[in-house]
């Protein structure tokens, strides 16, 4: 390795200066993104500059860290440590695509025929906003690889596992694209794991074609020292469904940001999730649903279970444009605070410009219901066990939203392992 890079944003910009000529894709786009990132920097890292979108999450800790970015194929990295990490990934009877530190790992993968790589077909897509989102700018500037999952029309592509493994000290900016042709079906289990302290900054662009259905389940089980900052942009065509669920278990600072565009009549989006946080973890679930066509449906339930000093953040906005009559939007955010030092910040937002709509949101914050607890205790169940039963019930309700059974089983197993870790 050459001389160490500067820390924070300057380090990434220096990295870009060195790699500019070898990175795939349109350099003009990357240059523009680099300018945006230079101007924006990490949210919260510049004193006196506040951003409403990042009101409750600061990336100040990132500004002091140095990372390496891996370039090219990752096959050399296949070692026992990675194999051990992969053992934590739920095993489905399905094709598996593995990335290590942002690069495709052929040896560990069993890809479907329609899989392609960003490194070979670089395309930055049409939905993302590097000029508005500093992390998308960072990704656009440095993305070297990613998964392109293009399912042809009228095809049921079953289930595929997309796994990203991070190693200590790495910064990965994978650029994924999932595209479903008309009436196609696909289920993606998107898993993020790793060890040590690292940055995983994926950007995923999703296009669900007319009448198609994409089930997008994410399991974020990163290492305790990780920064996981995922941004997804989904465009949903008429009569199509984007059904997503994000289970957040890991990371030091995590943010799952989803922008959904309901672009044609009768499109449906489900943006559900659960965040289970302990220690001093900070996890942020931010979503924007744009209803830009009539008769679309959006549903969202996000649950937080917060222990120790953990801090959960939920920001959800439903935007209903003038043309989007007959919109049906629902949003619910619930938080269970299990310790005196846990914190929840919740901001559900409605922005409505059409009159014939049915939109509602709700939020509840509190500890376990003492009456429910009393009920269980009165039946002889010890306090700790009674509490565990109630938390499980609270979570089970969230996971019910995952309708694809194998995927739900995999997520439930991960929650189970999370419980075991808490007990240990």
């Amino acid at each position, binding site marked *: 390795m050459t001389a160490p890079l500067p820390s924070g944003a300057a380090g990434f910009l220096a990295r870009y200066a060195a790699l500019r000529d070898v990175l795939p894709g349109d350099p003009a786009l990357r240059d523009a993104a680099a300018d945006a990132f230079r101007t924006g920097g990490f949210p919260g890292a510049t004193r006196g500059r506040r951003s409403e979108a990042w009101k409750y999450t600061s990336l100040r800790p990132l500004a002091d860290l140095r990372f390496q970015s891996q370039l090219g194929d990752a096959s050399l990295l296949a070692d026992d440590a990675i194999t051990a990490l992969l053992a934590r990934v739920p095993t489905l009877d399905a094709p598996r695509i593995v990335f290590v530190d942002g690069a495709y790992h052929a040896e560990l993968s069993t890809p479907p025929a329609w899989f392609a790589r960003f490194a070979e077909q670089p395309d930055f897509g049409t939905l993302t906003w590097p000029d508005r989102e500093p992390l998308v700018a960072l990704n656009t500037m440095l993305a070297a690889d990613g998964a392109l999952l293009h399912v042809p029309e009228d095809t049921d592509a079953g289930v595929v596992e997309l796994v990203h493994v991070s190693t200590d000290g790495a910064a990965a900016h994978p650029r994924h694209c999932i595209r479903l042709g008309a009436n196609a079906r696909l289920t993606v289990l998107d898993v993020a794991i790793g060890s040590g302290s690292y940055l995983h900054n994926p950007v995923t662009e999703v296009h669900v074609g007319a009448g198609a259905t994409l089930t997008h389940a994410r399991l974020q089980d990163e290492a305790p020292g990780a920064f996981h900052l995922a941004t997804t942009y989904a465009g949903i065509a008429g009569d199509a469904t984007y059904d997503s669920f994000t289970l957040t278990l890991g990371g030091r600072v995590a943010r799952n940001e989803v922008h959904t565009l309901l672009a044609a009549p009768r499109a449906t989006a489900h943006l559900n999730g659960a965040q289970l946080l302990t220690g001093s973890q900070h996890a942020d679930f931010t979503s924007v649903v744009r209803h830009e066509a009539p008769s679309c449906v959006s549903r969202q339930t996000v649950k937080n279970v917060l222990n120790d000093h953990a801090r959960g953040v939920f920001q959800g906005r439903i935007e209903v444009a003038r043309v989007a009559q007959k919109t049906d939007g629902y949003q619910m955010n619930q938080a269970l605070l299990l310790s005196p030092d846990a914190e929840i*910040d*919740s901001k*559900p937002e409605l922005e409505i410009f059409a009159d014939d709509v049915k939109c509602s949101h*709700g939020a509840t*914050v509190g500890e376990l219901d003492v009456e429910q607890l009393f009920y269980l205790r009165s039946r002889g169940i010890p306090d700790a066990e009674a509490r565990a039963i109630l938390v499980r019930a609270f979570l089970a309700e969230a996971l019910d939203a995952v309708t694809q059974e194998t995927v739900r089983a995999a997520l439930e197993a991960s929650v189970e392992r999370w419980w075991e870790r808490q007990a240990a």
Partner: protein
Amino acid sequence: MPAVTETLDTVQSVTQSGYKWGFETDIEMDLAPKGLNEDIIRLISERKREPAWLLEWRLQAYAAWLKMEEPHWARVDHPKIDYQDLHYYAAPKKKPGPRSLDEVDPELLRTYEKLGIPLKERAILAGVDPGEAEEAARTPVAVDAVFDSVSVATTFRETLRKAGVIFCPISEAVHDYPDLVRQYLGTVVPVADNFYAALNSAVFTDGSFVFIPKGVRCPMELSTYFRINARSTGQFERTLIIAEEGSYVSYLEGCTAPMRDENQLHAAVVELVALDDAQIKYSTVQNWYPGDAEGRGGIYNFVTKRGACRGARSKISWTQVETGSAITWKYPSCVLQGEDSVGEFYSVAVTNNHQQADTGTKMIHLGRGSRSTIVSKGISAGHSNNTYRGLVRIAPQAAGARNFTQCDSLLIGDQCGAHTVPYIESRNRTAKVEHEATTSKIAEDQLFYCRQRGLTEEDAVGLIVNGFCKDVLKELPMEFAVEAQKLLAVSLEGSVG
């Protein structure tokens, strides 16, 4: 009558009933030169023969204001305000101030008469004129009338004084009760709290001062009626209400302004302090001129209202009916410091034509067992935008705190917008926070039901809207509730059909 004339008459009557408070009073005014600088502040302070500490306080606020920027986070849109193009002091001539109602300029009395606020010591609110016998049976209301920059009359002062209640213009309180004013002024809304509060602190001219001593239940409703009349002025009133231990007061506020094509600025600050077991009920019917159907003119209502529940079991309740103003930027809030203190916010905000309202509340829970309730009803019609923006914050020490929030929006027509932006921050697990919001339009079946019973569409909408707002309207004192219901109907005129 020829059809054309008839049409013209109808059109005229509709426009006039749209805002019947829009007349102008021709009265000789004492105006400060336009512009804002230290000299103007000194001039205001001098006119009011203020003590040195208050001038110092104003200058401090001005210095802070110069360094501040206008807030841009609200969903409101307006051309840049030229703060140098305003008169910061406008008072009807014939000073020094009248000591009794007989000395008040008859022109002013006529103005208030026209507004339905007769400044007589047998006055009651709303335009109802009861017979003598009936009148005696009614609870009287004490009124402080603020005309542009100064208070022109305060009724029932003697009766109140006997009960130990102080109700007078704040400019007088500065002279008569300097220690009280000094002790509390700026303690709830600090001089540099926000851009408009700092501006107000620098240039405020009048407003009401209320002090309810320990254990006293104020014998009548107190009311301030604000009137903007002069051209190119801003109104910057300051209200301070202190309720000592175990006391109770109900305070009402009303406001109107002439119809003009220019926008006028109203930047008030209201501070409430409730000590142990004290209760303050603050009701507002905000009816500033909203501008015409094309969005020309109207008041910019940028107001900071905050109450401190300092004492244990103290309670502050805000009820507001917001129908006027071109732009409303207003968040009546409660800082719940006392143990088991209670904050309430009941709001109806109606926007029509090109009005913009960004309003809501903040409930800051600091005391153990503090409770708050928020009920907000937003109604948007025409090309208007109506935003609820609220914060519920539970501090780590606020064990057992409780909040319930209900925000409902109603859209009438497809060119308006309704927005809900709540912030919920909880740092105590024993606190319970619940928030619910809905957005909908008037249901076809409800409308049909009313129509088939012979109501016109407009009356049916009025009825349904009143039902939608019932939870808030029932919190208003009776006279105000009647007024508010009429206002709702007027505000929504022309929004259907």
